């Protein structure tokens, strides 16, 4: 579903990603681990066509992210961390419909999907309220619903639980489980090791623009002789354990 081949990305003279390669199969949930500045967000932006690679190839759902941007965008649902990307003066319904129209969804299909997502995230009663009045957790629910509206095959989530309270974070984790059940491909970045352990089939550890580890968690635990992912991560990046 995702093929990253010798991918490079530089900003001015700084190399943020240095010839990284990995593949993600359909229905896999992959956790991106790394410190701030390791290149996680840059990788997600490259996958979502927001940035153009400086070198190498990148294919999502079989489409080239540079030459077939529109097809890639139709196949992905994106949520960037920290910012919910919602219009404060519009209602939840207007925000979601706006994106649905940009995905050229038929009105009846859009309404049915909206109601399905609103029920799932329990915000039916808030649908016609301006999102400027929402709590951080509620905003995140609407933002995720917006990114899943067109039922994408690939979901890219950048630190989706950052800044959320326990209940909201639990809701997001449950969603990732459910997406996995539905056979969706999910890549999400996180600083929370526990979350990654619980949700992922695989982890990709990034450090200074290179991949330190790419593989299954069980393999990693056996190789390192411990089940403590945080300890493993710290030892791999050369930090104090």
């Amino acid at each position, binding site marked *: 579903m995702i093929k990253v081949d010798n991918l490079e990305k530089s*900003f001015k003279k700084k190399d943020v990603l240095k010839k990284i390669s990995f593949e993600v199969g359909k229905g896999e949930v992959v956790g991106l681990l790394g410190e701030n500045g390791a290149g996680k967000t840059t990788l997600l932006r490259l996958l979502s066509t927001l940035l153009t690679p400086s070198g190498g190839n990148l294919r999502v759902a079989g489409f080239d992210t540079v030459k077939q941007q529109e097809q890639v965008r139709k196949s992905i649902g994106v949520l960037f961390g920290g910012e919910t990307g919602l219009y404060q*003066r519009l209602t939840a319904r207007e925000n979601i419909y706006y994106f649905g129209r940009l995905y050229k969804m038929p009105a009846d299909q859009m309404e049915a999907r909206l109601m399905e997502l609103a029920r799932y995230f329990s915000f039916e009663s808030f649908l016609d309220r301006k999102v400027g009045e929402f709590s951080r957790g509620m905003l995140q629910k609407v933002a995720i619903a917006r*990114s899943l509206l067109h039922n994408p095959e690939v979901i890219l989530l950048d630190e989706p639980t950052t800044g959320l309270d326990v209940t909201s974070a639990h809701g997001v984790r449950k969603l990732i489980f459910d997406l996995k059940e539905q056979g969706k491909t999910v890549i999400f970045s996180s600083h929370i090791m526990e979350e990654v352990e619980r949700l992922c089939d695989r982890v990709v550890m990034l450090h200074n623009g290179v991949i330190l580890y790419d593989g299954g968690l069980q393999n990693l635990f056996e190789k390192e002789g411990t089940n403590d992912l945080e300890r493993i991560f710290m030892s791999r990046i050369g930090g104090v354990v």
Partner: protein
Amino acid sequence: MQWWIIVKKEFIDLFRDRKTWMTTVLIPVLLVPLLFFIIGNAITKSSEEASKDIPIAIEDASGQVQNWIGSNSAFQIKSGITGIEKAVKDGNVRLGVRVEPAFQEKVEKMQPVTITLFFDPSDNRSLISMGVLQNQLNMLNQQLLGERLGKLGIQQQSLTPIEIKEINLSTDEQMAGSFMSLIIPLLLLMAVATGGMPAAIDLVAGEKERGTLEALLTTPASSKAVLVAKLIVVSTMGCLSAIASLGAFAFTMKTDAFQKFTTTGEGGNAGGPLNFDFFTGQNIFYILLIMILLGIMFAGVQLALSTVAKGFKEASTYMSPLVIVAMIPAYLLMQTGAKELEIYHFIVPIVNVIAIFKEFIYGIFNLGHIGMVIGSTIVYVGIAVGIATYLFRKESFVFKH
């Protein structure tokens, strides 16, 4: 038609933002009449106040001049003042008059006499009061002259061998045009330049700050469609602001305050009755066309600046000089008559718009000049939009790293 989906959403979003509407429409609609009302009333009030109850100190041994001035109720003669120069300087009186001690004697001997007037030109009221005093003394002068000529047996009319007649060949439209040609293009330019600013800041720098631009650009909408939509919205807001300003100006023209403003000369001695007769169907078509082009040009520049800015505050800082950029050409052409305009006036950006509006207002319709203005403005629109497109496609400006 993704650009149209974005345009509709932007208008709904902006319509709900009170700040944007206040800056774009409400402020011009309220400010223009208010400005003329306040200025018009202030000028009238100041002029009326300066022409009555004028405190004056007079040194006149003969008492003749003092009586003459005192016969006009506009003056309040202050007695007991010594040192009239100091009294005027200190503001104790507005005017001072010193009459030559031998006034009576010299008048009788038909010799010239001197009356010295003291005033403070830094005080506008003193200047206006001075005019009233000069009129009063001129009448005394005429009276004494008549008496002297009578004694000599000469008719006063024979002292005016040449009678000068002034005939005004300007039409009312042209006279009004001298004032209108300054104020209307300035109002329109200011409105077009500033009306779209809040929208331009909000739609790019604001969206970057809130993270909505990033989300928008992950949808199938191309960056070209996004930029086109934003250009349409920003230029529409600029044009709306211009129409609001013009409407407010048209309304203000009908008010007494405006008439006071123009008839006192502060409005550039409009002279004739001000009207919008130059707004013929033909002119309206070209004015609207030029205004729309100008709106797109400013929108291009504003969106380019908003793209370069990291956030809301930075974008506001970058855009504030645009107001001055819009004002300078209006002032540059202030003293240039509609018939004195050179070819380059119709080509230089912004100056060309002022120049062609000036011609319209003076009733001149020159298709060649109109073509030059439209042609050159289209080139500037292309440059502004080109720069905005280039910057909007630069990752380093659109995304925070």
